[in-house]
C-alpha cells in the first residue's frame, strides 16, 4: 500500500489556525501558560513556611541589612582567645556593635538585657573527662530579635570560634580543612557495578537529567495525547469526516491534526517554560537564596545536558518519543467516535508513558548491563530511559543506534496502521473499536479480508 501525504500541509495549517482561534483551546493555552509561569511563585508561597522551618534547622542566612539586633555581648569563659578583629571575618557580626564581657559580668547583664540585645556565651565543660565546648545565645523574654537572626548571629560566632579553637591547638589550615571536611559514605556495590559507574558521571548528575527529561516528556505526552484524541473525536462526531476523506488522504488528515496539536502543546510548553524561568528568576531576585526555587536548583544537577553530544541525543530522543506517543494517540483516537470514550482511548497511551516515567526516575539505580540493554530496546518505554543509560555509560553506542532503529520502525508501523485503517475507522460511528481489531484491520489475514468494522 502506498503512503500518500497530499493535503497534509493544508490540514496542518487549518487545524493549527483554528485551534488558536477556538475560544476553548485559547483559554486552555492561556490557562496552562499562566499555571506554568506561576509555578515557581506558588512553590515559594506554599513552601515558604515549611522551607523556613526546615532551612533554619541547618543554616540560616540573614542579611546584614535591616537587623533587629542593636547590641551583641560576648562572654568567653574558655581558654580559646577571641578578639573583636576575629569577629570581623563574619559579615553579620562585623555589621553589629559587639562588646566583650569578662567572666561573671554576664550575670548582672542577664537581669537587664533589653529587647534588642543578644548575649553569646562560650563555655567549656570538663565534667565528662574530655572537654566539651558550647556556644549559646541568650535574649530577653520580650526580645524583638527574630529566631533566624538570633541563630545566625550565634552560628556565625560559633563558626569563628571553632576555627580559633583548632588554631589554638597549632593545627595548619589544611589540617583544619581536613578535619571539618567530613566523609561521604557510599553504599557497598559489587565490583562489576563499581566499574560500570566509573564513567565520570555522578548519580546526582544522572538523576537530575533523568528527572528533568522524564518530567518534560511526561507533561508533553499527557497534554498532547488528550488534545490529539479530542481533536480527532471532535472531527468524527461532527460527521465532517465523510466529506474530508473524499478530499484528502486519510493519513494526511490524521497526521495533519497530530502535528498541529503537537505544535499547540509545544507552544504551551515553550511559553509556559519561558514564563516559569522568568518568574523563577524574579522570585530568586526578590527572595534571594531563601527561595524554594533556589533550593531546587541546588538539589538537581543538570550539568550532563551541558555537553553538546548529550544535548543532541536528548533532543533527538525527545522528538522521536513525542512523535511516537502522538501517532499512537492518533491510532487510539481514530478507534473511538464519542467523546465519552476518550478516557478508554487515552488509557493505554498513558499507561505506557507512566511506565516509562517510573523507569526513568529509577534509571540511575538500574545498573545491570543486560537489564539496561533489554529496557533500551522496548518501544515506547525505552524513549524515557535509553538516553539516560547512554549518558551513564550503561549502554553503548550500538545499543543506542538499535534503540533509535526500533522506535523509528515502530513509528512507521503506526503510520502504516493509520493509513490503512483511518478511512474505515472514520466511517465507524458506533462503539469503540478495540485496538486488536484495529491491528487486524491493518494487517488482515487473507481469508478474513472482508472483516467488518
Amino acid at each position, binding site marked *: 500500500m502506498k503512503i500518500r501525504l497530499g493535503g497534509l500541509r*493544508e*490540514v496542518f495549517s487549518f487545524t493549527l489556525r483554528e485551534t488558536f482561534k*477556538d475560544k476553548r483551546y485559547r483559554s486552555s493555552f492561556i490557562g496552562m501558560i499562566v499555571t506554568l509561569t506561576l509555578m515557581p511563585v506558588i512553590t515559594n508561597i506554599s513552601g515558604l513556611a515549611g522551607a523556613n522551618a526546615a532551612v533554619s534547622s541547618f543554616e540560616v542566612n540573614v542579611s546584614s541589612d535591616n537587623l533587629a539586633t542593636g547590641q551583641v555581648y560576648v562572654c568567653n569563659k574558655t581558654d580559646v582567645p577571641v578578639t573583636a578583629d576575629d569577629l570581623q571575618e563574619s559579615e553579620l557580626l562585623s555589621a553589629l556593635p559587639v562588646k566583650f564581657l569578662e567572666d561573671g559580668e554576664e550575670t548582672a547583664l542577664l537581669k537587664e538585657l533589653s529587647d534588642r540585645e543578644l548575649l553569646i556565651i562560650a563555655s567549656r565543660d570538663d565534667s565528662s573527662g574530655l572537654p566539651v565546648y558550647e556556644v549559646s545565645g541568650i535574649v530577653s523574654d520580650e526580645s524583638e530579635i527574630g529566631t533566624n537572626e538570633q541563630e545566625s548571629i550565634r552560628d556565625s560566632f560559633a563558626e569563628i570560634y571553632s576555627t580559633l579553637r583548632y588554631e589554638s591547638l597549632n593545627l595548619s589550615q589544611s589540617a583544619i580543612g581536613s578535619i571539618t571536611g567530613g566523609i561521604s559514605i557510599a553504599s557497598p556495590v559489587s565490583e562489576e557495578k563499581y566499574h560500570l559507574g566509573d564513567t565520570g558521571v555522578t548519580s546526582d548528575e544522572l538523576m537530575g537529567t533523568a528527572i528533568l527529561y522524564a518530567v518534560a516528556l511526561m507533561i508533553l505526552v499527557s497534554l498532547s495525547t488528550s488534545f490529539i484524541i479530542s481533536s480527532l473525536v471532535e472531527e468524527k462526531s*461532527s*460527521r465532517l*469526516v465523510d466529506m474530508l476523506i*473524499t*478530499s484528502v488522504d486519510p493519513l494526511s488528515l490524521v497526521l495533519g491534526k497530530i502535528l498541529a496539536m503537537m505544535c499547540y502543546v509545544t507552544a504551551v510548553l515553550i511559553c509556559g517554560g519561558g514564563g516559569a524561568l522568568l518568574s523563577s528568576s524574579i522570585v530568586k531576585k526578590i527572595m534571594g537564596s531563601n527561595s524554594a526555587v533556589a533550593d531546587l536548583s541546588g538539589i538537581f544537577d543538570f550539568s550532563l545536558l551541558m555537553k553538546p553530544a548529550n544535548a543532541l541525543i536528548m533532543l533527538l530522543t525527545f522528538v522521536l518519543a513525542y512523535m511516537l506517543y502522538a501517532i499512537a494517540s492518533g491510532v487510539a483516537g481514530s478507534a473511538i467516535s464519542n467523546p465519552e470514550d476518550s478516557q478508554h482511548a487515552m488509557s493505554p497511551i498513558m499507561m505506557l508513558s507512566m511506565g516509562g516515567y517510573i523507569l526513568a526516575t529509577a534509571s540511575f539505580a538500574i545498573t545491570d548491563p543486560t537489564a539496561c540493554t533489554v529496557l533500551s530496546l522496548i518501544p515506547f518505554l525505552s524513549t524515557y530511559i535509553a538516553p539516560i543509560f547512554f549518558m551513564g555509560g550503561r549502554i553503548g553506542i550500538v545499543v543506542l543506534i538499535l534503540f533509535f532503529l526500533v522506535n523509528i520502525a515502530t513509528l512507521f508501523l503506526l503510520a502504516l496502521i493509520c493509513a490503512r485503517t483511518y478511512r*474505515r475507522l472514520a466511517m465507524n*460511528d458506533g462503539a469503540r473499536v478495540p485496538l486488536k481489531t484495529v491491528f487486524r484491520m491493518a494487517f488482515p489475514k487473507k481469508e478474513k479480508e472482508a472483516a467488518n468494522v
Partner: protein
Amino acid sequence: MSLIVRDLSKKYGEKTVVDHISFEMDGPGVYALLGTNGAGKTTTIRMMLDMLEKDSGEVLWNGQPLSFTTCNIGYLAEERGLYPKYPIIDQLRYFAKLRGVSDAETEKRIKYWAERLNVEEYIFPGKAPEAEKPAATESTSEGKAPARAFGGTPAKKKEKPKTPDQLSKGNQQKIQFMIAMISDPELLILDEPFSGLDPVNSDILRSVIHEQIDAGKTIIMSSHQMPAVEEFCTDITILHRSRAVVSGNLNEIKKSYGRINLSLKTEQDITAYAQQVGVTILNEKEFEYDIRVTGQDQALDLLKVLVDNRICVVRFDLREPSLHEIFVKEVGADNED
C-alpha cells in the same frame, strides 16, 4: 465522460448490505439511487467514493478507478456535518484549498454561491441580505442621508464571523452544498439533498441542480422524494434489501409497466360501467375518477362503453405509473418512508 459501477458488494459479518450492484452512465445526466432506509444506497455511494472497502466490484471514471485524484468530485453526505465552532468562511476556504482551488477563484466561488444560495449574511457577517439593504437614495425622516463611512458603505460595527452552531439546520445544509460545489466538480454525488430543507430552499436547490445539469455535469443522487427524482433523473436503480430490483432508463422502466393509470372526468356517475368493464376505481370525487386498468385495451373498452351510453367524457388521461407507484410496487408499501 463515463461512469461504470460494476458488481459492488459489501458484507458486514454475515449480513450482506450491498449485493452485486451495477449501473453505468455514458454521459452527463442525473442517476438516482432509490430505496428504503437500510436498502444500501449510502453504503453504495461510500464504496463508490472509496470511503468503504469493497468486498467485490469496481467503480471506473473514464476507465480509471474513481477517486478524488482521478476525478473532481463534489459530495454532499447524508450525515451533515461542519466544524461547529469554526468560522464558516474558514471552512469553505479550507475545503477549496484541499481541492486545489486557487485563492482568487475560491473567493469568487464563495461569493457566487453565497449569493446563489442566499447565505451571504452568514458568510460575510455585517452584509445584510438584498431585501434588507437600504436603498442608495434612502433618506431619514428629516430628509438627511443616513450616516456613512468613507467609501459610501454604511458605518457599522465589525461583526464576528459566524460559526455553524449559529445557523439553522437548513442553512448548515446549504453551506455543505457550497462545500460540495466549491471545486466546481465534474461528478456531483448528492446523498438525500432535499432532506431537512423547507419548500423555499428546496426550490433554490432544485434550480441549482437544473443549472448543473445544463452545465453538463454528472450527478448521482439518492433521495426519498420521488417527484424530485422524476424531475431530474433519466436513469434509476431501486434498491431493496441490498439488491437492485429495478434498474435502467426511467422512461423505459415506466413503459415496461404499461399505461395503467386512467384519470377520468365525466358529467355523470360511471360506477356501474366501470364494474361492467372490470376496472378498479381507486378514487372518486364529484365525477372525477382515478382508475386502475390492466392496459390500454381495457381503458379503450371503458371509453367505448361510456360513449355508447352517451356519458359525457370531459377528460380521458391514460398514463404510465408514477415513480412513486413503481417504487411502492417494487419494495412494498409497508417499507416506504
